[in-house]
């Protein structure tokens, strides 16, 4: 056997083992989350090491409890509201701003680009205390709409940066054609830039949605009234109150995870593009 052939077969073995390893460590927690949410407490207590799921004993009661007794319907609606409004605002403002940075000439353009990147690196923990103090003082900390503004500040610079990179690749002649055909600047954005940027806009929308939907720290610090809780905040609340019932916590976890994973499954390539165009943070 030549060295080339030997190494090749070693590599094949490593690859199979490696793929199995990664598949298991990645998939198992999600599998376990779902299985445990369908299995009553007694069964977990009796046999915690049972890896399989007995389909005859599937128990959906935890979902019922979480949704109706623990207010998760409300939390789902709140999370949807927060995420969708954040996405809409972020997309609109980032499109308009990204266009300005790309195409219009003004002083301080390069300064803008740097600030965007610096803010991209900015961690939430540095901002949470001062914001907590300001909004507590002004008396509207416990508000979903304030939360939206905070999320907007977190996502907008990155969204703008992503769109700017994309707009730069669009041919200038196309916009000039639009201007001559009778569009105003905003007409060009609306009728030419936006339709042409659909993939980039999808990436930005997904990214923003993910940030807003998954966000924990600000929701945890800002929201006091259960009626205003987002899902993440609700799950933490639930975990604190029903410490032993793992089934409920896992059902709640499934509820908060499922939408984002499904969304991601359908639009995977946009999300991947969004992330690799230098846009993810976490």
């Amino acid at each position: 056997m030549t060295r080339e052939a030997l190494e090749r077969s070693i590599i094949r073995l490593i690859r199979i083992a490696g793929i199995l390893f990664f598949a298991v460590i990645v998939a198992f927690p999600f599998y376990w989350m779902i299985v445990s949410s369908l299995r009553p407490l007694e069964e977990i207590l009796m046999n915690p090491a049972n890896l399989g799921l007995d389909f005859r004993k599937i128990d959906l009661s935890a979902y019922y409890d979480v949704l109706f007794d623990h207010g998760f319907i409300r939390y789902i609606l709140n999370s949807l509201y927060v995420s969708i409004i954040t996405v809409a605002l972020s997309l609109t403002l980032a499109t308009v701003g990204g266009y300005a940075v790309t195409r219009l000439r003004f002083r301080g353009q390069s300064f803008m680009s740097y600030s965007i990147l610096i803010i991209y690196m900015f961690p939430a923990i540095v901002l949470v205390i001062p914001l907590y103090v300001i909004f507590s003082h002004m008396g509207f900390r416990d508000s979903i709409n304030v939360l939206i503004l905070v999320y907007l500040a977190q996502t907008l610079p990155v969204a703008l940066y992503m769109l700017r990179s994309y707009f730069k690749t669009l041919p200038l002649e196309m916009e000039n054609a639009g201007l001559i055909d009778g569009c105003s600047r905003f007409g060009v954005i609306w009728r030419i830039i936006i339709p042409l940027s659909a993939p980039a806009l999808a990436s930005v929308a997904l990214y923003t949605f993910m940030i807003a939907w998954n966000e924990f720290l600000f929701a945890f610090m800002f929201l006091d009234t259960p009626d205003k809780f987002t899902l993440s905040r609700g799950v933490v609340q639930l975990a604190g109150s029903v410490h032993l019932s793992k089934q409920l916590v896992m059902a709640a976890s499934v509820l908060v995870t499922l939408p984002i994973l499904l969304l991601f499954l359908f639009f995977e390539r946009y999300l991947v593009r969004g992330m690799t165009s230098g846009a993810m943070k976490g």
Partner: protein
Amino acid sequence: MASLTLKGIGKRFGKTAALSGVDLQVEDGKFCVLLGPSGCGKSTLLNVIAGLVPQDKGTVELDGHSVDRLAPRDRDVAMVFQSYALYPHMTVAKNLGFGLRMRGVPKATIRKKVLDTATLLGIDDLLNRKPRELSGGQRQRVAMGRALVRKPKLFLLDEPLSNLDARLRANVRLELKQLHSQLKTTIVYVTHDQVEAMTLGEKVVVMRDGAVRQTGRPETIYSFPADTFVATFIGSPEMNLYRGMILRNGERPVFQGREFHMDMGNLRLNLVGRGVDLGFRPEDVRIVEAGAGTLPVKVEMISDVGSEKFIHTQIGQEHLTLRAPKDASFRPDEIINLTIDLTRLHIFQKGVRVD
């Protein structure tokens, strides 16, 4: 349709002057070609006319009225771009009708005008396609159609043929010329291709370094180039050009170059004692038997273009190119004798034509 007047247009990009003091008059219905090497400012000038790039100095007038304050959409001009810039998310019909839609033209009218234009250009069967489903030639037509459909005051074309292959380019050139004589519209056409300029233009504007070097009918520019740049830029193969001095030989003026001297015949100008550049085109040279006043040159290389031959020769250190009929046969290193048509000499002093 309209006439276009440019007065003292100047434009800088940072430290480089893209345009300096450009004056131009294009009469109503004229086909005007802006010709020059890349980077000469011709495309910038076109963008200034369209209102896409604001000029620093000067005014743009359509029909005698300044349009400097008007946005591109309010100038009533149409433009065909080098890349065509078709909207990829719209069908051909939508692309053609977009400008009309933006101006609030009723839908039925748009449909009719789009169909008329598409028929005129022979693309009426493509109306429901998207640009990516079209060939290069078809895209070019759609781009033309998008400009035509609006019947604007002024057409601006920015190297519209440069993305077509050679054969197609010749066809479209011909069609464009027919279209113009049919529609009698005012056109400003930018190109770096002199053949395009000479065949299409009723008025050719040769530009270099952001300035107009010569304006005139194609044959004027070819026969009476205003300076050495125009002289060498127009014509292929290039004009032969030699630096030298006019001396007096008895009563007759003689050109004394570095490698040869030449009787200038009845040159009336009093240039004796001056340094000049002497030029003549390859077709103004004839091959003759050796005799008095003939110019012996050494054949260097022959390029056969089929319909004729270009003979590249050497006189000492300098080169001379001439056109010969296709049946001419010479071998490299052969010595041949030439005479030059003295009525077709071009004489430049400090780069500028003197007549």
